[in-house]
């Protein structure tokens, strides 16, 4: 065996001389280049796709090596997932710290017991539809991002497969519904969310009332307008990237899908963390806020506290006397009269 190998090796030694004589063309002077080296150096490159032909015809079948896949894998596993987890944790921590520092913010002078209409029925329904869709989409999306790390140890691999499958199905079918809902929300709320530079800047400088002095606001204050525009603009990014991903039937390449997956993921994390702030402010942060979107009516003292400019505009037109807590006799300016029993 060994002698045979040595014999073969000896023959190999002879061949370069043979080649020089055999390939006696003007180009072959000296070292003969392996015609395969150029080809395989190209194939080995990391920065370009090697495209050939194939009898198999799925999109991308003629690509020998897909170089973008590893970049996406590394980004998703090593960067996106850990950073997203950190950002979400910090967001929750921020809300928590704000609660500790500021506590529950009461209506100054307490409730008046008199209600005025703030949100119409269609505005409420649209808000809650969008909100519930968003919650389901966010949770199912987070399952796809973090489920492998956190939920498989809890549920086991087989059960989690079922959960994730249901989650993905919900996510894919509710996504387009969210598109419609968000559009309706935009149309209903955009008019009062147009920035008013002077008033909004003043509100921001006063921290919305956090830094002591009272901050005036119209129907929506600068904080709410900020959330609206985040929801619409980041939501638009989510919607567009989501639709590209949800309908991969238009010949999208792998690189396209990977790009939109990254965009969708980053936008989703931004939206989710921003929603922590909105949800907290809309529910537990302030006295008298949650009932407004729940019923459509707000307490007049709450309105004076937080949206005084709006209250001045609407106080004579939108009082609903049937919403009054006290059934006292009505006067001409019944909206402004304090009910005697409230301090």
């Amino acid at each position, binding site marked *: 065996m060994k002698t045979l190998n040595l014999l073969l090796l000896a023959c190999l030694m002879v061949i370069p001389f043979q080649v020089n004589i055999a390939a006696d063309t003007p180009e072959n002077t000296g070292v*003969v280049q392996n015609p395969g080296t150029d080809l395989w150096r190209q194939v080995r490159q990391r920065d370009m796709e090697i495209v050939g032909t194939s009898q198999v015809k799925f999109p991308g079948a003629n690509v020998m090596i897909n170089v973008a896949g590893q970049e996406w894998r590394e980004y998703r596993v090593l960067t996106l997932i850990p950073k997203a987890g950190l950002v979400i944790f910090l967001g929750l921590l921020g809300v928590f710290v704000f609660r500790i520092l500021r506590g529950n913010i009461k209506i100054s002078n307490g409730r008046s017991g008199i209600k005025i209409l703030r949100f119409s029925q269609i505005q409420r329904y649209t808000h809650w539809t969008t909100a519930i869709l968003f919650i389901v989409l966010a949770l199912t999306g987070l399952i796809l991002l973090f489920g492998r790390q956190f939920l498989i140890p809890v549920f086991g691999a087989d059960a989690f497969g079922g959960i994730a499958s249901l989650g993905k199905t919900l996510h*894919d079918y509710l996504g387009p519904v969210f598109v419609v809902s968000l559009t309706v929300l935009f149309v209903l709320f955009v008019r009062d969310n147009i920035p008013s530079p002077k008033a909004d800047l003043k509100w921001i400088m006063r921290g919305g009332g956090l830094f002591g002095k009272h901050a005036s606001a119209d129907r929506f204050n600068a904080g709410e307008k900020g959330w609206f525009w985040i929801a619409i603009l980041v939501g638009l990014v989510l919607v567009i990237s989501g639709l590209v991903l949800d309908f991969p039937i238009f010949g999208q390449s792998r690189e396209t899908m990977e790009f939109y997956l990254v965009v969708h993921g980053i936008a989703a994390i931004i939206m989710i963390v921003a929603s922590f702030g909105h949800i907290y402010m809309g529910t537990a942060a302030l006295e008298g806020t949650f009932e407004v979107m729940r019923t459509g009516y707000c307490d007049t003292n709450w309105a004076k506290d937080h949206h005084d400019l709006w209250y001045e505009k609407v106080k004579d037109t939108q009082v609903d006397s049937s919403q009054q807590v006290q059934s006292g006799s009505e006067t001409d300016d019944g909206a402004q009269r304090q009910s005697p029993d409230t301090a």
Partner: protein
Amino acid sequence: MARMKFYCDAERCIECNACVTACKNEHEIPWGVNRRRVVTIRDGEAGERSLSIACMHCSDAPCAAVCPVNCFYTTNDGIVLHDKDICIGCGYCFYACPFGAPQFPEAAAFSSRGKMDKCTFCAGGPEADHSSDEYKKYGRNRIAEGKLPLCAEMCSTRALLAGDADMLSDIYRKRVINRGASVLNWGVSYDKIKLDS
């Protein structure tokens, strides 16, 4: 323990697609799914080469790394398999794979692709060996019978090799030595090498 790999000898592959056909036939793979394919570069020019590409059963498999439900596993022989019952058809493995090995039976709206299917090295799946469930989902299990993948067995020029990585590299090394001049001089591979005796 063996480490199972494929190796396609580009000098021998003649793009006959017998490997593609053998695989599709043996495992009764549905329309549109192609576990194996032959890619030809520099088609029609000098230096044309073809490679038969399927799952390469990577040691650090990108498909396994990105799967959101962790449905991949590696056998003791180094074969990368997955569980179709857990698979949710998200497509991430297809995006990450450098070779485009994962395939899906559907391309429908709402991102519904069906369960991922790919080359199993003819080693079936997590179901019991040789059960009808295993055959329906993953195809034939030749490894459990002690046989090698059918694509390599059917290769008309023995370009496609499949088996233990050490053995494959041994075979290929011998080929390179025996070929000698063919890689250095186009067209010599099928002529006799004249030795200067």
